[in-house]
């Protein structure tokens, strides 16, 4: 298990994302899959930075857990900002044409499409977002 906590500022994003991807590297994910995990984590972090703390600053805490049976890479992203359940949002209509296509909503959509599983819970005034990726089978 690995855990890191930093102020929710754009300057801290790279450190946070890099810490996740270095652990993903150890779990045997392909370079492509690591890029996808990075993108999903970045989208979640950007949202916390942009929306979770409208009245000031707060922290982001990331915990990475390597689970066995079934093998899973679990990333927990926590904040103490406004309650927000990303699973309550509709998917954007990706078949809409240019003039009908709505702006926004793609960050959460990418998270859901790129991760194998996404969960949300509210726990003592904290938002806990859980992103799960299944590593390739060991042979």
């Amino acid at each position: 298990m690995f855990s890191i906590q930093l102020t929710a500022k754009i300057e801290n994003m790279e450190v946070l994302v890099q810490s996740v991807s270095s652990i993903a590297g150890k779990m045997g994910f392909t370079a492509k899959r690591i890029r996808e995990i990075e993108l999903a984590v970045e989208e979640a972090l950007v949202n916390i930075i942009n929306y979770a703390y409208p009245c000031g600053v707060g922290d982001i805490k990331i915990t990475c857990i390597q689970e066995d049976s079934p093998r899973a890479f679990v990333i927990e992203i926590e904040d103490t900002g406004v309650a927000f359940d990303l699973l309550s949002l509709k998917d954007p209509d990706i078949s809409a044409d240019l003039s009908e296509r709505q702006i926004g909503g793609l960050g959460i959509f990418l998270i859901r499409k790129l991760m194998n599983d996404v969960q949300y819970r509210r726990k003592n005034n904290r938002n806990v977002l859980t992103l799960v990726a299944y590593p390739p089978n060991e042979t």
Partner: protein
Amino acid sequence: MEIVKSGKENNLLVVKVTGRMDAVTAPEFEKQLTAWIDEGEIVFVIDFSMLEYISSAGLRSILVIAKKLKSVNGKIFLANMEESVNEVFEISGFNSIIPIFDTVQAAVRHGIAS
């Protein structure tokens, strides 16, 4: 991110974007393209061969620009994306709202003909 004019054919402007289009840099793209639109450019080919990374913020800026161009009867074509960038376009359905070409040449040919 770096955005430079890399060519002009007839009324078509080729723009090369290098680096990352993310929450920090995408607004620059939007601002620069908007400035060029305001100067009267309305047909763009964006050369993404050097684009390493795109996030939803990048997609958002591209959509804003594409809508802006549509409203002035302009056009935007994308060219030469890396596979990881292309994947993001596919997941988000952007490949069906913005024409994407394998090469800048193909995009330019198509842009001039249209």
